[in-house]
């Protein structure tokens, strides 16, 4: 199997997780899938750069994070990728009872700075270790933990869970 076939097959398996990551980062489902499309195109175009001994998911997630940053820059709205009132579309709907809670969560996420949203996506949703997230983001592990602590505090304050 040549490298581009290996990457393509890996991407097929990775697609659900990539979409989940993009949903946390980008918010709305349509924006998230636009981001996924860019990531797939970049990963395929750069498949020769992927070394089979490196984990494909981390490689692709790094591409996703950078593509998302590019998108934020292009939009010139680094703080808010989308209006918080639209943020409810970010999360899957799960019945009336949970809907309000999920809207609130999506809005709280939308208000996080990009640095913080990234660590939430990578560590809390994707389950990467601090070291893995640090390597992916090219920052020290201590930076990941301090961003994560501040992101958690901000989310809890927004959600009114801090009482």
């Amino acid at each position: 199997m040549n490298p581009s076939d290996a990457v393509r097959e890996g991407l097929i398996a990775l697609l659900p997780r990539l979409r989940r990551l993009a949903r946390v980062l980008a918010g709305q489902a349509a924006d998230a899938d636009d981001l996924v499309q860019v990531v797939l195109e970049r990963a395929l175009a750069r498949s020769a750069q992927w070394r089979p001994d490196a984990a494909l998911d981390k490689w692709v997630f790094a591409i996703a994070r950078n593509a998302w940053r590019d998108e934020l820059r292009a939009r010139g709205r680094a703080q808010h990728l989308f209006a918080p009132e639209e943020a409810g579309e970010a999360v899957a709907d799960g019945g009336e009872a949970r809907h309000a809670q999920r809207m609130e969560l999506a809005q709280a996420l939308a208000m996080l700075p990009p640095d913080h949203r990234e660590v939430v996506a990578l560590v809390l949703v994707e389950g990467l270790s601090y070291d893995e997230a640090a390597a992916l983001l090219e920052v020290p592990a201590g930076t990941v933990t301090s961003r994560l602590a501040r992101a958690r505090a901000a989310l809890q304050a927004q959600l009114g869970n801090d009482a």
Partner: protein
Amino acid sequence: MNPIDDDILQAYVDGALGAADAARVDAALAQDEALVRRVRQMRALDAQLRAAFDPVLDEPVPARLSALLQPRAAPAVVPLAVPEGGRGANPVRRRAPRRWLMPGAALAASVALFVAGLWWWHAGNGMVRMRNGEPYAAGVLDRALGHALASEPDARAAVAIGLSFRANDGRICRTFTVRTPPARAGLACHTAAGWELPVLGPAAPAEGGELRQAASDLPPAVQAAVDTRLRGNVFDARQERAARAAGWH
């Protein structure tokens, strides 16, 4: 003085502490109610995040994304005719402007395209072709949609037709079930380019493992797609026959 700061506590919750440090936090938790509460808050937040985003893993992948990952050599991705509007040979629209979610998350979740597994199914049995990044019926599925009548069911046919109706965009749509493994159910809508497949997903097996198709057996995603498109009533046998005679226009 409290020796357990937020960073330590967070690392404890995230499973990032070594055994000795974790034991130290365990000991502190046994005598500090405030610490216990903070751990509980963090875990609740994590659970809330997972509950909100994990369902994305089970959502159908939009066709425009799975289409990007098809082997370039697969002949089925090549448009069979020159695309209208001169979009060229690229089967996938870049940065497609289409919004995949309709207003309202509930509607969106059920109506969002349902093409998980499209890629391998398509590669496996040639019932689907891609055209401008959208899936269309091909082969036996295309023939069944064009010719089979629900009023004349054929229990041995690979494809069973369910409901036929005129959608609110004026096109005629038909639900179908593919009986041959991997069993699939979906919705096809007639266009000048053939039967477009806005919804395609695993068939809901009926009791006893047999696949039937009655309206009540439609997978929820197909049913939801019908509900959003249906204008008026579904066709009766006479209307279905007349629609076929008119070439599904």
